[in-house]
């Protein structure tokens, strides 16, 4: 067991990236980790804002044109092995901002997320519920823990 996998079995760091949604999902994710009601920290899931510390990247929002490049840079900065969770209707399929046009290409939205970076787990909902976020993180765990 390498030092990194040893430490990872004891603490998972989640990084949250906001790419132009409505803020609802972001607050629910922060709520899910900070709020004493859900308290993901008791399962050793921590929130970080540094991509080099992170294991799991949680992306919310439909990825606006300006946010596309920073998102790719953040994804590349996270050390391997890593997992990406797309949270919320906007991150899954562009939400109201993209699909309301039908198939007409949007001038503002570059997303959804899986067009830009590979996504491992998807969490639906508008806005996502904290319980669903926890189950999404749990679904992505085998990718991290079984990696060599």
């Amino acid at each position: 067991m390498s030092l990194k996998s040893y430490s990872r079995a004891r603490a998972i760091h989640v990084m949250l990236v906001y790419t132009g949604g409505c803020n609802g999902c972001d607050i629910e994710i922060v709520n899910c980790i900070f709020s004493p009601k859900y308290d993901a920290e008791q399962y050793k899931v921590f929130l970080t804002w540094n991509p080099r510390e992170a294991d799991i990247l949680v992306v919310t929002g439909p990825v606006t044109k300006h946010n596309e490049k920073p998102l790719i840079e953040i994804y590349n900065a996270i050390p391997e092995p890593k997992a990406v969770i797309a949270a919320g209707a906007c991150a899954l399929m562009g939400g109201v901002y993209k699909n309301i046009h039908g198939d007409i290409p949007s001038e503002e939205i570059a997303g959804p997320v899986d067009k830009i970076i590979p996504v491992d787990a998807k969490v639906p909902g508008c806005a996502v519920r904290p319980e669903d976020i926890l189950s999404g993180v749990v679904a992505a765990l085998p990718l991290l823990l079984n990696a060599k």
Partner: protein
Amino acid sequence: MNEDNKITDKKVIETEITMGTVHSAAIEPYRVRLFVEDEIVRDAEITIGINHRGIERIMEGLPVEKANSLTEKICGICSNSHIWNSVLVAEKAIGIDVPERAQYIRVIMEELERLHSHMLYLAHGSEVLGHETFAMRVFYIRETVMELLRMIGGNRVQYGVSIIGGIRPRCELDEMRIQKIREGMDIIDEKILEFADRFVSDPMIMARVTGVGILSQKQAIELAATGPTLRSTGVELDLRREMEAYDPFEFDIITQDDGDVKSNLLCRVLEIPEATKIIRQALDHLPDGKITNRSWEMQDAPITKSYIEVPRGKLYHSYSLEDGRVRNSIVRTPSITNIGAMQYAAVGHHITDAQLAIVQCDPCFTCTDRAIQIIKI
């Protein structure tokens, strides 16, 4: 004091610190340029526009009911304010009478939203201060409000309560729900007083927030700051006094004098008991009757405007109606002027206080990013 410090020629200052667009200190993407001399901020520049999704463009030509529910997606924190104001525009344009019971329930939802928005501000402010325990405490109190919102609207964040002519049938308040809201208000009143006591009596926090990020009353008026940011500089201005829906309720307008981070925090803490007071009055005098007026007919209307007071300040919606479809939609959120004012509040203070000075106005960048700059080529 700040005006003397502000410089106009940015080339004089060589040290420039740039944050953004995605930065670990800021949850939402925005860009700040700080021009620094001897670790004192001499000028600040905030750039927005990274989150621009063109929601007014999407609203153009949609049926008015659909456009109303779309305005809710502008912001996940003050979603009820947006849908309420958008519905008010249509009601004003067509001339629909809203039943009194529906007005009361709308006010109750708006005040619940003010509660959770202010508590989120306190939690975020504590986190920026570096006091995570306070943030967790406030999140714990806030969970009471979130449960009430889920009970009434069916969702924790986007709870579309208002529809044209009244409220959704699902959001009707019966005896059980009224009882639950009363219990929730008791819990919040008790816990928030306890929190405020701890907050004010903590000498370290008070030393960190007193005299930081000062915005003078003159500057606040000139820069058109709204909401608690304006009230924290001593201006007694609250649009709720002029709104028809708030006529039956008695409440005080909270003002503070200093215009610094402490005044901003205290202004919002003290607005929480006022909001619970309004909710209690509304529950006590909740009129009987129907909750939706369905006897109205769609008609064309010229551009109609509506202003309401939301947790962050003054919100403006306007559109015209054509064959039941929305045209010329404009949304103006309070954060746009507040963020502009914060460029001046950060000036003259130490660089470590810059982030605190900027978040003191409760900025919501996702609300704000709808302005389009037209560049001449």
